[in-house]
Structures are given as structure tokens and as C-alpha cells.
């Protein structure tokens, strides 16, 4: 009834290839963006903005980065945390060395540095595949974290070893990092960065680059015979993925936690982001967001649900229960819908097109 494409004829290839070919989808997306930009900053409390929306967006960006590499290009990577750390520390060094440089520029440069590091660690992917590649990326992960902990140059020889993010403004007096920053400014800044990068990702995956990645993922032997150059394609995936993860890491350190520490990017972080894309859906931009939302909201839900249901769970049990629910949910998802929430969403839309008719 509501969700029909009757009467929506495409008369050009361009229309056929639009991101949201169905008009109702387009309205939905515009509404979501409007809500994100107008409604949430207006009604959202500081708590909401700082501890739910901002981490959600940052996680979504990192998940997007990993999805490009693992979901689209098929290269399993457990080094996400390490690349995020590169972004965070690169931002720190750049902004302390050049305090006058605008934070946007600093972020972009940090992303490029992360991309270069990612490319370096991506070279083995030509010879190594599957699990073996995952283990090779573990080398990157452990090495990078060790490096950031070991060499004081990275944290400017600070005595305490704990560095806080210096305050930086986007333009004029609008601070987005540091203690003085308005949560709404922070939120809008992160939102804009993520929206722009998500659009760019969409552009990549529906064009030449995305197709080459998916060809490599599905059958890299056949891809070579079409004329795809495997090393270049894989390295591009590593580079772009690390670019996204680097910026996510920078925003994590500078805007979310306001502290630059290697311990925030350990192997657990890599697994967390991997879960997001598994649950959200491999090879799906929407899936990265859904997975991030799921994993950000789940602990909050688990924290509050017992209370709402009327009983208390002792604090020391909560973490363990969370682990268990987490693990069980992952197995459950993989059994029920290995393609993740994004696929469930797509199935839902299919059903909605027919509603209220059964078929």
C-alpha cells in the first residue's frame, strides 16, 4: 500500500542506478538526515549526544572502513584497531607540531598516513588469503600497538603517558575538541564527516572500484582473467579502508574520549568492529551503521533491561552476562541470517512492498 514502486518508471540508466531508486526510500533517507541534523541536537541531552550518538557515528565509520576491506573486497582483517590508532596518533603529532592547521585538514592528513600504513601491511595479501591473511593482520595490530606504547616520541614524551586531546576549532570559535567544546558542535561535526565519507563509500562501491573488489572477493582467479590486477585492487582496498579507520580512530581519540591512548585500540577493538560488520551485514553500507547501532545500544539495553523488568543483577555479573549474550547473539545471527541486519532490512522492505497482500 504505502511502499509501492507502481508508476515509478525509470527512463534513463542514471535513474536506474540511483542510490535510492524507489521514491519512498529517498524520502525516508531525507527524513533520517533531517532528524539527525535538526531534531537530535535540539532535543538530545548531553548524555545522549556524548555517550550514544557520537560513539555510534565513530564506530559506524570504522565499521564502514572494515566493511570496504572485508565485506566488499573479501580481505579478512583483524588489524582495525591498529589502523585506528595510527589515525589517532598521527592526528596528535600533526596537531601538536602544527597547531595552526585546521582540524579538518589534520584529520585528512592523518587519514592519508593511516592509508599509507594500511597499504604497507596490505602487501602480504597478494600471496596470503583467508585465515592466513587474518593472522598476518594480527601482526600489524600487535606491532602497531606495541610501537605506540614503546616510543615516547608518539606521546610527546609526556611524563604521565596519558595525553589529552588539545582543543581545536573547526572555524572561528566553534570548538570540536577539548573540554570547552559544545556537545552539539562535536556531534554535528562528527555527523557531517561520517555522512560525507559514507556518501563517498557508496560512490566507490557502486562503480568500477566496488565491482573490482567484489570480483576479487568472489573469485579472484576469474577476476584476473577479466583483466583486474589483484595487487592493485587489494592494496586500494587496504588503503581506503585504513583511511576510514584512521579518521574514525582520530575522532575517537579527539572527540569522543578526548584522550589519545593506545589501549583504546587493542585487539578487542578489532574484534568489536568485526562483529559490527558481521551482525550488520558484510558488503553493505547500511549494514555498517546497523551493526554499529546494535553493538553500541546492546550494553545499554542489557544494563537497563533487568531494571525495567523489575529485578537487579549484581554488577560483577553484568559484564559476564553481556559477554554471554553477545556471543550467543553472534552465533544466533550467523545461523539465522548470515548476511546480517542489512539483509533482514531488505527482506522487510520486500514484505512491505507486498503489504497488505500476502504475495
Amino acid at each position, binding site marked *: 500500500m504505502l511502499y509501492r514502486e507502481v508508476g515509478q518508471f525509470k527512463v534513463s540508466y542514471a535513474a536506474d542506478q540511483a542510490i535510492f531508486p524507489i521514491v519512498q526510500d529517498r524520502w525516508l533517507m531525507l527524513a533520517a538526515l533531517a532528524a539527525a541534523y535538526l531534531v537530535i541536537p535540539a532535543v538530545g541531552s548531553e548524555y545522549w549526544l556524548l555517550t550514544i550518538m557520537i560513539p555510534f557515528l565513530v564506530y559506524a565509520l570504522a565499521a564502514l572502513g572494515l566493511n570496504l576491506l572485508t565485506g566488499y573486497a573479501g580481505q579478512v582483517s583483524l588489524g582495525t584497531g591498529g589502523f585506528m590508532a595510527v589515525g589517532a596518533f598521527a592526528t596528535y603529532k600533526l596537531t601538536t607540531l602544527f597547531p595552526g592547521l585546521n582540524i579538518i585538514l589534520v584529520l585528512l592528513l592523518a587519514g592519508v598516513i593511516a592509508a599509507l600504513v594500511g597499504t604497507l601491511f596490505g602487501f602480504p595479501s597478494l600471496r596470503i588469503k583467508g585465515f592466513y591473511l587474518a593472522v598476518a593482520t594480527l601482526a600489524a595490530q600487535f606491532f602497531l600497538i606495541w610501537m605506540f606504547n614503546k616510543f615516547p616520541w608518539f606521546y610527546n614524551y609526556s611524563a604521565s603517558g596519558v595525553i589529552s586531546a588539545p582543543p581545536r576549532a573547526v572555524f572561528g570559535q566553534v570548538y570540536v575538541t577539548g573540554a570547552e567544546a559544545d556537545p552539539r558542535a562535536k556531534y554535528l561535526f562528527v555527523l557531517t564527516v561520517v555522512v560525507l565519507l559514507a556518501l563517498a563509500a557508496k560512490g566507490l562501491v557502486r562503480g568500477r572500484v566496488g565491482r573490482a573488489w567484489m570480483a576479487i572477493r568472489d*573469485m579472484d582467479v576469474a577476476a584476473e582473467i577479466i583483466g583486474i*590486477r589483484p595487487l592493485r585492487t587489494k592494496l586500494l582496498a587496504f588503503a581506503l579502508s585504513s583511511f576510514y579507520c584512521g579518521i574514525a580512530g582520530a575522532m575517537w581519540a579527539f572527540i569522543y574520549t578526548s584522550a589519545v591512548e593506545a589501549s583504546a585500540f587493542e585487539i578487542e577493538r578489532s574484534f568489536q568492529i568485526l562483529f559490527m560488520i558481521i551482525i550488520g551485514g558484510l558488503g553493505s553500507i547500511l549494514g555498517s551503521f546497523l551493526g554499529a547501532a546494535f553493538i553500541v545500544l546492546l550494553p545499554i539495553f542489557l544494563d537497563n533491561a533487568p531494571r525495567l523488568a523489575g529485578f537487579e543483577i549484581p554488577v560483577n555479573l553484568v559484564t559476564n552476562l553481556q559477554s554471554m549474550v553477545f556471543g550467543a547473539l553472534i552465533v544466533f545471527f550467523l545461523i539465522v541470517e548470515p548476511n546480517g541486519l542489512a539483509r533482514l532490512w531488505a527482506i522487510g522492505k520486500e514484505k512491505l512492498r507486498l503489504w497488505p497482500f500476502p504475495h
Partner: protein
Amino acid sequence: MKRIGDPVLTADRITLAFGGITALSEISVEIRHHEILAMIGPNGAGKTSMLNVINGFYHPQAGTITWKGETRQRMRPYHAAAQGIARTFQNVALFRGMTTLDNIMTGRLLRMRRNFLWQAIHFGPAEKEELAHRARVERIIDFLEIQAIRKTPVGRLPYGLQKRVELGRALAMEPELLLLDEPMAGMNVEEKEDMCRFILDINDEFGTTIVLIEHDMGVVMDISDRVIVLDYGRKIADGPPSQVRASPEVIAAYLGEPHEDESPVAPPMPRRAVAT
């Protein structure tokens, strides 16, 4: 009358061995411009291996290939693709995660130039390029009569249609030489007729030289200009269909007379599902 030209690809004394098994023994083949060349022979004779050598997937231990005037012993597959050689596979090597349209579009990747930054922005040169290639691909889709399955993920298509999509992907590369590995395996009579029609049209309209491996003798006799017969990695006949059909060696190979001078080692069985 079709004009068959000079040789475009010459394989000279190709020898290919895997461990102790010799797949190809000193095979020399000439492929002439604009012809349809059929390669036949019993299972394990080395036909697929020969195609694999031509398009760079296997590297022979001895022998050379001359393509477009350049002689070399080994070539990477993407060089072969860039130089105008396309192929299809016995086991349908399509990208299962993508739709028909996307699969055929991957055939255009060689000709897409816009780098990833333009792709990220999408609007502008990247989009123009994309739409131009889309138009070409749609023509191929029309030619192969697969409009209805444009947006279907190929994993869901029946085998016969998958083979057609794979042919479409090869055509999208605008090849000068098209290598088809059992393009009609597992098809019924009507599908085979369609496929034959496509092959002949491709040869006619686009002037593509075609090499095909095929088991159906009716098809081979009907559409090919020349036939090469392989057995145990050796070439045992080479000529027009009528001549090859009457050759005693070929008859012996197919009906299985014992070869006294052959090695007792069995040739490797190509690993594929048995086509019924």
C-alpha cells in the same frame, strides 16, 4: 563466403606438465583470424589445459605463444585480457555475489579509466563513464536476450543462463580472440541452438576469432571452420570437419583402441561435475 585470414595466434611446441603428469606434449596450433576453431578429444586430453596456456593461466615448461606479433613463453592472465583474449570456463566462473548486470559490467573494467577519487564523488566524469559502459552492456544483454534477469544475482540462475551471462561478460571485454570452454555443456537442444546462433553471430558481426572446446559432434561439425583433435596431450588431427571425422586416428581415439606406444600413466581427469 567468410574470409579467414592469417594466423593471429600461434602456439609452438607447447609442453605442459604437472608433477609426473604431462598434460600437453609438444603441441603446435595455429589460430587464424576470423575462424571458428573447435578443439575436441576424449576427457583428459588436455583441451582445457591448452586454453589455460593460451590465456596465461598456466605457464608451459617449453614452447612459445605468438600473439599479435609478439612471441613469449609466459603471460599473466591480465595481460592476456588487456591484449584482447577473453574466455569462459567449464565450471562457470561468475561472481556469485553480483547480479547479471554487474557481472557483465566487470567485463568493461579494463576500459574504465576514472580513478577512485572520481568514483567516490560519483557525479561527473565517473558517472558519465559508468553510463556509457552501461549502454554498451545493455546492447550485449539485448543481443543475448537476457533482459529479464538483469538484476538477478547470478547464483540463483539456472546453469544454462549462467553460461549465457558468462558469455556476455566475455563479450563485454570486446575481445579479438574468444576462448569458449564447453559452452554448451548441460544444455538441452533449444538452448544449444540458441548458443550456436550467438556464437555464429559473434563471429559474423564482431569478427571475433573463436576457439571452442565442445563434445557435441553435431555442433562441432555444423559451426566450426576447422577442427583440432587432442588425445593424451598430443594433437592427432587438424583440418576441416569432414576430413577430421573420417580420420582413422580420431576414430581410434574415440572408440578406444589400445595405443601400443603410449605411456601407461593415465592423463589427469579434469575436475568437474559430470554433465548429464
